[in-house]
């Protein structure tokens, strides 16, 4: 029966919607019983980027959350797209990962076909067309930055497919905190050290004021011909060291007999 059913359907690749109805039914049943279905791993995040005199500085925190639990204390959110283009990703972790990898492959094939270094605008166009095709169901909010023959460029790309080309952008749950820092201290044509300090402070604002962001600060400085991937650039949250040692000293005699004393506590 299985074989005859598949005769008429041409087997196509890509997303399969076979289980959607079943999942909706299960979700309704589970909610009736009072449980909650498992949540996708998100990067409730602070990511930001700034254009300075010679190039672009991208910054990101390193916490990945699964509902109210930290799933990964040191995940890498700055993804490689091409030697001169990098992309920070916020939203559903798997979506940002797969989307950036697909676009990276496409950009590599495209640059082999044209014989030139790929442009940031090409990556932007590919990303926005793919995200619009899936109407926002792919939850990937990206900050794309790089340096190409037309100069340093920075784009922010939203899950539904809209993009903005700006000198400084922030995305993620900590974007408001980071944007406050940018609005206060950004000025055009900064030097590299000043730009790195600005991005570091913006991410730190997101880390300390937003529950979805935390751990370390990663930085990526892209200039014409050179990329500095600083991971970690700043360990803002160091895990504490245990102050006391509660183990028995080596060679302590073991106690094999047990005596029980009942204590009477008048209440």
């Amino acid at each position, binding site marked *: 029966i299985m*074989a005859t059913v598949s005769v008429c359907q041409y087997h196509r*690749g890509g997303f399969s919607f076979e289980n959607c109805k079943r999942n909706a039914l299960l979700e309704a049943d589970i909610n009736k019983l009072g449980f909650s279905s498992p949540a996708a791993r998100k990067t409730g995040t602070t990511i930001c980027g700034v254009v300075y005199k010679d190039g672009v500085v991208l910054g990101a925190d390193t916490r990945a959350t699964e509902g109210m639990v930290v799933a990964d204390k040191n995940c890498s959110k700055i993804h490689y797209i091409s030697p001169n283009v990098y992309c920070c990703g916020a939203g559903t972790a798997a979506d940002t990962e797969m989307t950036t990898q697909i676009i990276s492959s496409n950009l590599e094939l495209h640059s082999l076909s044209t014989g030139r270094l790929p442009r940031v605008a090409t990556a932007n166009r590919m990303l926005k067309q793919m995200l619009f095709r899936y109407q926002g169901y792919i939850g990937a909010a990206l900050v794309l930055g790089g340096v190409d023959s037309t100069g340093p460029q920075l784009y922010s790309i939203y899950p539904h497919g809209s993009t903005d080309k700006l000198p400084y952008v922030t995305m993620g749950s900590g974007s408001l905190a980071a944007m406050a820092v940018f609005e206060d201290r950004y000025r055009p044509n900064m030097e590299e050290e000043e730009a790195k300090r600005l991005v570091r402070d913006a991410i730190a604002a997101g880390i300390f004021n937003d529950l979805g962001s935390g751990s370390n600060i990663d930085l990526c400085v892209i200039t014409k011909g050179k990329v500095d991937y600083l991971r970690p650039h700043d360990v803002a949250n160091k895990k504490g060291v245990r102050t006391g040692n509660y183990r028995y000293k080596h060679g302590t005699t073991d106690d094999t007999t047990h005596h029980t004393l009942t204590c009477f506590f008048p209440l």
Partner: protein
Amino acid sequence: MNTRGLRSQLKDSVPVTGLCPQAGPYGVQDSLRRGFSSVKNELLPSHPLELSEKNFQLNQDKMNFNTLRNIQGLHAPLKLQMEYRAARQIQRLPFLPSSNLALDTLRGTDDSIGFQDILNDPVLSEIMGDPHIMTEYKLGVL
């Protein structure tokens, strides 16, 4: 590709009434080939993207041919569609997955990668249609 598929290209690409009409060649519910049916399955798509994804390649081709017709005239899409029709006929046996290399080269998708190449790749499918029944269906003797 089965010969019955040609008729679907003449119809509107997005079916308005009934997503997967369960009627077979005799006009009644075809349980053997399409399984059990329910009214809800036929009327509503299980996901908002299901219809748009099913017709995505078709819609892209239509859009491109329209643009080409506006720019270069009617001859350009006519010649290209003839080449597409020829390339679409280069297939392996009905139950084996075909590479569609000529079709991909014509479309320009041979140097791009998407979710259709990564998820549910037909080459890596674990089930295969019964060879006898597939060839009989293709030849129309089933």
